[in-house]
């Protein structure tokens, strides 16, 4: 069946009914410079084998398989994905099903999302976690909007410069056109965020910190919560690496009101930088301001346990322009995958995996230290840290590339003041040999 829902006669009849006359008449309200003229700039069609070849070529260019040792995280992490995750999440009942509007048809999907919400809420220390957002960056933007909704007449938010630069760009894209003011908080020598400037700020709806932050440094969330609440603002904790909370105190127990971030670490391949998973939760009093979909547990007429979408009156299909968000059907399969990943590891598994990441990272710090490099920030870290080299690192980086080792991310493009320094990420997949090889090249 061709996907052409309307015949020319039907289009004619509908245009006549509304008095638009023609399709151009129907779209007359769209300014001329916003309209596509001429043909779409798309490449010519390919055969199936040409298309397969094209994607193989793209995949090879990205080193997303295990052909290279990638010591770059910066928001997208190379973690082992247990086979249970692929086997279960790949089932067509999960993979191909539509958004669960009909609970009588979608109990499996709804239960899967409910379990994801439950496990994520435990990990993050939140009372409620939604059925997911698009990704970590849009989740942070939604968190800021939520803070502004709760703050009612307040028009200002603050965020740490140590939040992922791409996340901050997305926050600006969401908030600036709406006239909200965004203040950025500086980084201290420890790599932690300077909260001393909060005192002088009024009209502040929310303050966001990332922990571990972009430099891998673990923020003092408890102290931050106190300072932010003293400024009469909501505390948003953001993250790019949820695995850290297997080892660290979760944001909820440190006083965060809203927690959001990227869930890619939990069972989702790095792919072409996406799709990711926006994890999003809050404390109970703010539930009705929560963006996105929520699955709840209930009972059917015979008293049996069942799952349904709940509190849907926050959503745009009911509340139109007053909705808490304009997020539509997002990649629910990513939430389900992450739920399966968390259930596969269990709390003990997540704790042990987090410990392994931490220990291996400390090993790389140690061998780099012996090779004459030093850690740029003094604050504690989890599985990422910034390195200062005794001399120009670029020749060593190039030599390591020939050994299929991608040795960190040079920070100059994202933070000019940190040019020449690199952000390294070590996960369970990073071998000791690889770390020793990097140290050897630094020494050479």
């Amino acid at each position, binding site marked *: 069946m061709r996907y052409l829902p309307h015949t020319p006669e039907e289009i004619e009849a509908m245009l006549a009914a509304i008095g638009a006359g023609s399709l151009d008449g129907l779209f007359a309200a769209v300014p001329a410079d916003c309209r596509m003229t001429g043909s779409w700039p798309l490449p010519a069609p390919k055969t199936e084998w040409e298309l397969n070849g094209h994607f193989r070529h793209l995949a090879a260019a990205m080193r997303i398989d295990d052909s290279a040792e990638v010591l770059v995280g910066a928001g997208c992490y190379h973690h082992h994905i247990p086979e249970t995750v692929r086997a279960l999440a790949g089932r067509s009942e999960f993979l191909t099903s539509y958004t669960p509007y009909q609970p009588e048809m979608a109990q499996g999907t709804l239960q899967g999302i409910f379990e994801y919400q439950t496990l994520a809420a435990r990990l993050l220390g939140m009372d409620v976690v939604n059925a997911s957002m698009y990704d970590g960056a849009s989740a942070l933007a939604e968190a800021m909007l939520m803070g502004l909704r709760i703050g009612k007449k307040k028009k200002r938010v603050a965020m740490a410069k140590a939040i992922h630069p791409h996340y901050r760009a997305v926050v600006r894209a969401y908030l600036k056109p709406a006239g909200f003011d965004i203040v950025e908080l500086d980084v201290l020598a420890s790599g932690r965020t300077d909260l001393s400037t909060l005192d002088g700020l009024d009209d502040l709806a929310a303050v966001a910190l990332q922990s571990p932050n972009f430099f891998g440094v673990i923020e003092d969330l408890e102290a931050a919560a106190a300072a932010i609440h003293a400024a009469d603002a909501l505390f948003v904790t953001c993250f790019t690496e949820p695995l850290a909370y297997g080892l660290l105190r979760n944001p909820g127990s440190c006083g965060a009101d809203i927690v959001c971030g990227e869930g890619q670490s939990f069972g989702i391949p790095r792919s072409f930088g996406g799709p990711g998973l926006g994890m999003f939760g809050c404390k109970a009093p703010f539930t*009705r301001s929560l963006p996105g979909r929520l699955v709840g547990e209930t009972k059917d007429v015979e008293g049996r346990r069942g799952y349904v979408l709940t509190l849907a009156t926050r959503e745009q299909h009911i*509340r139109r322009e*007053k909705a808490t968000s304009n997020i539509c059907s997002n990649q629910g399969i990513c939430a389900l995958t992450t739920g399966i990943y968390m259930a596969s590891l269990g709390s003990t598994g997540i704790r042990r995996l987090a410990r392994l990441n931490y220990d291996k990272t400390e090993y790389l710090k140690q061998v780099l230290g012996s090779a004459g490099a030093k850690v740029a920030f003094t604050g504690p870290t989890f599985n990422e840290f910034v390195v200062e080299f005794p001399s120009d690192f670029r020749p060593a980086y190039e030599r390591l590339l020939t050994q299929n080792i991608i040795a960190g991310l040079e920070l100059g493009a994202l933070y000019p003041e940190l040019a020449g320094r690199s952000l390294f990420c070590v996960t369970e997949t990073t071998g000791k040999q690889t770390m020793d090889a990097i140290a050897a090249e630094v020494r050479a």
Partner: protein
Amino acid sequence: MKELEELNLPDDIRYTGDHEWAKITDDTVRIGVSDYAQDQMGDIVFVEMPAIGDRFAKGDQFGTLESVKAVSEIYMPMSGTVIAVNTTLTDAPELINQDPYEAWIIEITPADPSEYDQLLPAAAYLDLLKG
């Protein structure tokens, strides 16, 4: 849902076209929603109220009512400053369904008490409902 004749529309209060009611006593005005509003909305499950001290102009949205099937904004019948909110509704929003006139939502100090006279008496409100 109720027939228009079945609606309880007391004579000692005034109404708005948005289905709020206002009751004036000495220096303050209590505000709630009409029997028609609660009946149309169905089971009310949540009431969002302003903070004490908030100021609103006549016609401003001061809160929301959420039922199992819809969310409705509630608007100020008169300008004024909020001096009390009915916190019993936080845990028992169904009181609005049970008795919408006992279950007031906010109490204000009116900025201009004469605005009360511009509101609809019960008979005029009923006429409006009849269209």
